[in-house]
């Protein structure tokens, strides 16, 4: 009984407080369904560099001065 209470006390104290949420997604840190990286699919076959290049290029397309100014 006393051990159980102590354990509950310690657990409860450990559990208190706000845990930092960092902007790094470590697989294994979050044990829900893990999400595939956007390049791990049929379109990109795990080619991360190609994906990054494509997305960057599409991002630049949003700059209309580049498009009209040549």
């Amino acid at each position, binding site marked *: 009984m006393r051990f159980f209470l102590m354990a509950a006390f310690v657990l409860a104290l450990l559990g208190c407080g706000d845990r930092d949420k960092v902007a790094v997604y470590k697989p294994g840190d979050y044990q*829900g369904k893990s999400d595939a990286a956007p390049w791990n699919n049929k379109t990109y076959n795990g080619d991360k560099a190609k994906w990054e290049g494509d997305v960057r290029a599409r*991002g630049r397309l949003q700059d209309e001065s580049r498009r009209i100014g040549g």
Partner: protein
Amino acid sequence: MARMKFLCDSERCIECNGCVTACKNEHEVPWGVNRRRVVTLSDGVPGEKSISVACMHCSDAPCMAVCPVDCFYHTDQGVVLHDKDMCIGCGYCFYACPFGAPQYPQTGTFGMRGKMDKCTFCAGGPEIDHSEEEFKKYGRNRLAEGKLPICAEMCSTKALLGGDGDVVSEIFRERALKRGKGADVWGWGTAYGSAPAQQQDKAKEGKS
């Protein structure tokens, strides 16, 4: 590593609600759910400004901090996603979010909340990419196709920018540099740069 961000240029947004419509169409979100909305400040007063707002994919996300089942996660690209299979519809993320991004389809009587739905940065969710389930729960996964969010990509005035934070802020920085000074700041000179500034720019580009 790319960190995905949205940026809305209030000088350019003309409140056409195209982004809102495009988002609804792209993801076929249920009735009553609006992942994106356009808010007009001082509507009808000269100098009114419009801003398109959705989930801003916060780095220290309040929604993530308060969720009692811890169903949120950051992807490698800094997109805040959540697992709808875990969500219990408690509404806490909605209380905490500064932008009112989390939405709930009302599934029950007395306003009982369904599973939370929010902007995914067109990055789908924790299901197999491009699968039927992913589309039903989270909408289209454009990021996995090498595309950016539909709202930003189709914005007619390019007020709403989305994508890698570095790219987006660079575009905005260049735009801001071209903006007219002094008397030119009124009207479209601010939004699209004053004429002399544009010419100077072209001249410069021609030289280099």
